[in-house]
């Protein structure tokens, strides 16, 4: 931002930039001497510590919320799969596989044949498709 501005906030920002450059280039001794002379040595670091603590709490909360959401999603997907009838799942898988050769390659159905898959494998593939959102909400599995 090198454009001349009439906004006092932007003008103050330009000054702050130069001052901060200066502060970053100072040695620790010089800086602390300055604080002793012009600042408040007793409270140095308090603002940073308070801000850091608040940031840690905030980031922690966000992570917790994201983990809860992921857990909920997994639970939802697992429950959806549990409700599937295996015979119905085989029919569904056969329908999907016959319409999509890429799907057959991915799941090696061509080599083994759908009938060779165990119930667990069928449910596992369906589970993966559910978690990928392949079936719209409300799809009757």
């Amino acid at each position, binding site marked *: *931002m*090198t*454009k*001349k*501005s009439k*906004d*006092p*906030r*932007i*003008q*103050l*920002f*330009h*000054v*702050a*930039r*130069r*001052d*901060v450059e*200066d*502060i*970053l280039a*100072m040695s*620790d001794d010089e*800086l*602390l001497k*300055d*604080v002793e002379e*012009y*600042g408040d040595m007793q409270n*140095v*670091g308090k*603002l*940073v*510590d*308070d*801000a*850091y603590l*608040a*940031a*840690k709490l*905030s*980031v922690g909360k*966000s992570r917790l919320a994201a983990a809860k959401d992921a857990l909920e999603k997994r639970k939802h997907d697992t429950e959806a799969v549990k409700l599937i009838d295996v015979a119905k799942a085989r029919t569904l898988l056969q329908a999907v596989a016959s319409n999509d050769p890429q799907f057959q390659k991915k799941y090696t159905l061509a080599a083994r044949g759908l009938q060779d898959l165990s119930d667990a494998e069928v449910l596992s593939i369906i589970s993966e498709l559910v978690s990928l959102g392949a079936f719209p909400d409300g799809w009757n599995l």
Partner: protein
Amino acid sequence: MPEPQKTTRVLAPEEMRSALEKLSKADKARLENAARRFSSGLSITPQDLLQIVFEKALSHERKCPDGVPVVVFLARAMESLLDSYLTKREHDAHEQAMLSPNAEAEAAAIESVASLDDPAEWLQAKQTLAALTEKIAENATDEMVFQGQLEGMSPQEIQDVLEITPVQYASALTSIRRKSDKFF
């Protein structure tokens, strides 16, 4: 043949966290000073500004290249966030389209706690600037360097225009910084 892209290693989240836990007293003083100066004239507090950059660093939203001192990385992050926020208001729609893709998100981080549309904020910044200008005008060189800073001139431009040496410029900068300490 396209040149291979240079990849710079960045600090992993746990390395960043460890570095933040180990900030020295001098580095904390630097960060406080930077946050006070950068937030001057805006309705964001220095603590809020610091919290935003700490959050971005901890969540790895902003990554610190290996070898860059963490205090420099954090100061630059504050500067960049406010630059995006202030630039957004300065540019028209066409110019905004040419800003970095992150500019919008960066500006939003500050907009969540401050508003440039606040007339009281504008007035306060104007008063701070007037008082600061008066204090700095006690010395002619300081005043001219300060005017150059207000206009966003680079250090080299200021030295060229005023025909002063780098040493004289550095001395004026220190003098301005000390005089401005009490305003931030």
